[in-house]
């Protein structure tokens, strides 16, 4: 497909300049080809959402959804409210709590965000939940998982999807492979810089949503104090930069920029009420 496009663009450029070979700008033609190629290597929003829903479905195959409708609805409301403060307010954002003791959170392309029960259980208020959800939302905003797929071992399949060679309907086995590759990113982790960027954006999104922006660093501080041999932290340790480094960067970045928002509410009472309610 790409070769075909390349040939077409080259022949167009050549014929347009056919009467004056002396002025044929090869450099310009190559740049045009590169530009077209680049445009075709990004998936469309519907493709992103389809890919994300496949990855989310896999995640729910690995860990079940927590059977507590009140907690699920609560987490969705906090998450949706934050998402409304972002540059992608209209994608079908969906949040969920996984019934899993591991301490982790996951974002999938297209607006799917999950946190584990193990992580939720270590939070103290709604601002902390907001901080973690905002970090995950930022991964979706910046398309970090799509970038990882593009650079990964299945980059050819990603290009095929971007170039419409793979249809999202009809059960193309290549799409299944791409979805599997997308799920495996959770076992390997994203680029460190992507994690730092999501921390940096997450605290701002929490502030935009009216929360105390220090919820995310507070969670990181709690996790930092957990015994590092705790098996429930093993995957988080493997796939994320150290809590020390993340907290150090946030300390430098948040002060004094976010000091003006530190007296915004953390809604500890509302949080405790939902967590304590029996279904």
């Amino acid at each position, binding site marked *: 497909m790409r070769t075909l496009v390349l040939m077409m663009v080259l022949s167009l450029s050549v014929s347009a300049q056919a009467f004056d070979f002396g002025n044929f700008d090869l450099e310009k033609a190559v740049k045009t080809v590169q530009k077209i190629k680049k445009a075709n290597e990004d998936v469309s929003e519907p493709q992103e959402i389809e890919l994300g829903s496949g990855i989310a479905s896999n995640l729910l195959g690995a860990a079940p959804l927590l059977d507590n409708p009140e907690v699920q609805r609560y987490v*969705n409301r906090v998450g*949706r409210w934050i998402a409304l403060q972002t540059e992608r307010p209209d994608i079908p954002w969906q949040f969920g709590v996984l019934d*899993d003791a591991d301490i982790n959170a996951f974002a999938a392309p297209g607006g799917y965000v999950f946190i584990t*029960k193990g992580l939720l259980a270590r939070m103290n208020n709604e601002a902390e939940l907001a901080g973690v959800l905002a970090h995950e939302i930022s991964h979706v905003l910046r398309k970090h998982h799509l970038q990882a797929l593009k650079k990964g071992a299945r980059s050819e399949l990603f290009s095929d999807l971007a170039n419409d060679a793979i249809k999202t309907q009809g059960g193309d086995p290549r799409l299944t492979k791409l979805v599997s590759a997308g799920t495996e990113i959770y076992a390997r982790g994203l680029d460190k810089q992507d994690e730092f960027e999501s921390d940096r954006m997450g605290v701002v999104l929490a502030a935009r949503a*009216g929360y105390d922006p220090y919820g995310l660093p507070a969670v990181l501080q709690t996790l*930092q104090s957990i015994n590092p041999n705790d098996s429930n932290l093993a995957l988080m340790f493997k796939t994320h930069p150290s809590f*020390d480094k993340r907290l150090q960067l946030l300390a430098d970045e948040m002060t004094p920029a976010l000091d003006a928002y530190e007296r*915004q509410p953390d809604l500890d009472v*509302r949080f405790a009420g939902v967590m304590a309610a029996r279904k």
Partner: protein
Amino acid sequence: MKRLIAALLTLGFIASAAAEEAITLRSTEMKAKPYSDAQTLLTLPERSKVEVLQRRASWTQVKSGKTTGWVKMLSLQLVRGTTQRRADNGLRSLFNVAQTGRGGSNVTTGVRGLSEEDLKNAKPNPQALAEAQQFAATKAEAKRFAMQGKLKAQQVDYLPGGER
């Protein structure tokens, strides 16, 4: 806050009142109140050990010797194994999330969560995804929820890039 404490006490969530400890990561001013322009009570040198009383936004109330005051939260590192009480919310007790050993012991938890292998071998569960979808919030619901919590949307610019 009082309601919260009452609720927690009723449900028996505050199991122990063991002191939570932290170490200062840098030389840090201890303030009389949780504000930058509050009176400075004393300056804690780097690596001072303090007792943690409570957190309020970017400030943590600590006790050092006989002095109680507020220091910047991010100037502190909590001491491992002393944070049981703070991290024990209702969900943790209700859902029996495994507890870690106290006092920094090397005991690992018995319950093993989501592993690398689970993710690599994951099979789709579209039924669970459809179930999850029914809890999604509409924009209107989210706005109503924010209003109930007196959350006010703010204009805040993204922070400039950190380490690259």
